[in-house]
């Protein structure tokens, strides 16, 4: 490794300081939030001795528990569907050529780059126009709430899952798949016994990511949730706007821990490819 272009002297020091600053900036607020969630004070940013009262309040509040269970249901359902659709999309783009492929590829990027607010508006108007139509056509009895929120979450999660799975497929040798085909395996058998086991880490990573995003979403959910239906982030957002209480600290920290856990698992899952 050459060191002739490595910064020296004050430049090197400045780079190090900036590096530490970035990590401080990322993590100090999170650490402070966790600390204050244990503070026995009515004021959210003041330390008043250690207590677990706020966490107890959170788990005692039936509203919060209801919102939490809604969030979990929606996250699980939307993740399953978006993993199936996203993986299929990734396979089609990485292993096949077909008409309209380029358009499909571009379309998949749309949910990733579209601003949240615009997507929320799109979904609101879409359900406003189509829920009755769908109801009349299929008699699904769709109501705003679980279905509208799940459908919206699937819409943005398909893209994220497909990006992660595609990365896995792109970094994979096709030799084994070709060998399987040469040995008269059907396309399906080649997938089932050769490709699939290899992309499991990608699928797991994508699934955890989808779950995280579903559990985090505020804006879109707020727009499409019907009356009486709320998810945990929307519930918290409402609380924050009414006035900040230490209860929110406790709920936030819980959400933060779950979200970080899923992210770390997702990163670990995606990294499996390097060792295996």
């Amino acid at each position, binding site marked *: 490794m050459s060191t002739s272009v490595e910064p020296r002297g004050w430049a090197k020091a400045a780079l190090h300081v900036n590096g530490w600053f970035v990590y401080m900036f990322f993590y100090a607020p999170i650490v402070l939030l966790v600390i204050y969630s244990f503070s026995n004070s009515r004021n959210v940013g003041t330390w008043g001795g250690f207590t677990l009262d706020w966490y107890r309040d959170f788990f005692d509040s039936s509203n919060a528990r209801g919102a939490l269970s809604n969030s979990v249901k929606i996250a699980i359902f939307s993740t399953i569907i978006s993993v199936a659709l996203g993986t299929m999309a990734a396979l089609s783009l990485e292993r096949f050529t077909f008409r309209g492929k380029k358009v499909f590829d571009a379309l998949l990027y749309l949910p990733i780059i579209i601003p*949240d607010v615009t997507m929320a508006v799109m979904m609101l108007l879409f359900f406003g126009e189509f829920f009755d139509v769908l109801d009349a056509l299929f008699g699904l009895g769709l109501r705003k709430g679980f279905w509208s929120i799940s459908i919206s979450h699937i819409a943005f999660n398909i893209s994220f899952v497909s990006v992660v799975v595609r990365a896995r497929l792109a970094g994979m040798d096709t030799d084994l798949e070709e060998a399987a085909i040469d040995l008269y395996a059907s396309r399906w058998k080649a997938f089932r016994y050769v490709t699939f086991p290899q992309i499991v880490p990608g699928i797991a990573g994508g699934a955890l990511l989808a779950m995280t995003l579903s559990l985090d979403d505020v804006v879109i959910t707020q727009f499409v949730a019907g009356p009486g239906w709320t998810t945990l982030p929307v519930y918290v957002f409402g609380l924050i706007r009414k006035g900040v209480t230490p209860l929110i600290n406790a709920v936030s920290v819980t959400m933060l821990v779950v979200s970080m856990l899923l992210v770390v698992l997702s990163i670990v899952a995606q990294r499996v490819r390097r060792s295996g």
Partner: protein
Amino acid sequence: MKTVVKTDTETATATPEFEKAALRQESRRGLFLALPAYLYLIFFFVISLFIVFIYSFATRNRFGGTDLSGWNLDSYARISEPIVRDVLFRSVWLAFITTVICLVIAYPFAYFLSTRRVAVRNVMLVFVMIPFWTNFLVRNFAWRVILGNDGPLTNATEFVGLGSAELLFTQTAVVLGLVYGYLPFMILPLYAAIERIDRRLLEASRDLYGTGLQSFRHVLFPLSMPGVIAGSILVFVPSLGAYVTPEILGGAKTTLLGSYIVTQFLTARNWPFGAALSFVLMLVMLVTTIVYFRKGGRTL
């Protein structure tokens, strides 16, 4: 032709036919796999975007509903009203400031990352990724706690003797929240771009007696341009449409485009106007992204 042909020509004519059929079958399979997601996206993105487009030409009736008959451009005309213009300018300005601050912090950081050993680098990257995907609402709320009355920041500034820092509900707080939220969006593409640069080019520029600054200006920075542009788009676009951050950290005087659009739908009940604004926002996003891809950008 019915004449007898030699066997090898026969196989030669048969093969393309066979291959074509195989290709067609492959193509069908690919489309079949893509179809569910394809339809889903067309349904929920193309059609719903079209509905937003149609709504933007409609009229709000007296009851806060929307009349779809009698199309007009009134909603778009309202964009030139002073109040709306203020919101737009403020949003663009704050999004711009946010992008610049992110760039200034992220560039040296991304370069620093690229000079670390691979093992160290991977660990460092993971610690950038974690906040990247962690709950955005909660991360903004953390700043509400820090900046609040009698919060840690005020206590710290008072302790040092700077008086109480009253940042909450100001534009500064909003920018702070946006930078905090979107900094990883700048770091990751910048790192990807800088890491790809051939170190020998930098060495060559130093060998030719270029100063550190000259090597940066004429070699490193131009070569890292794709990352700079990708990161800037990824920070600028969501900042422009930000809703959660200004709601939590901003005040009444810092209404931004995102919140303004939401107000049109949930409070003012002027859906056509809200639709027009979100369509404009969408257009800004699409145009910047397309320009970026046209210029040869690849990392998003």
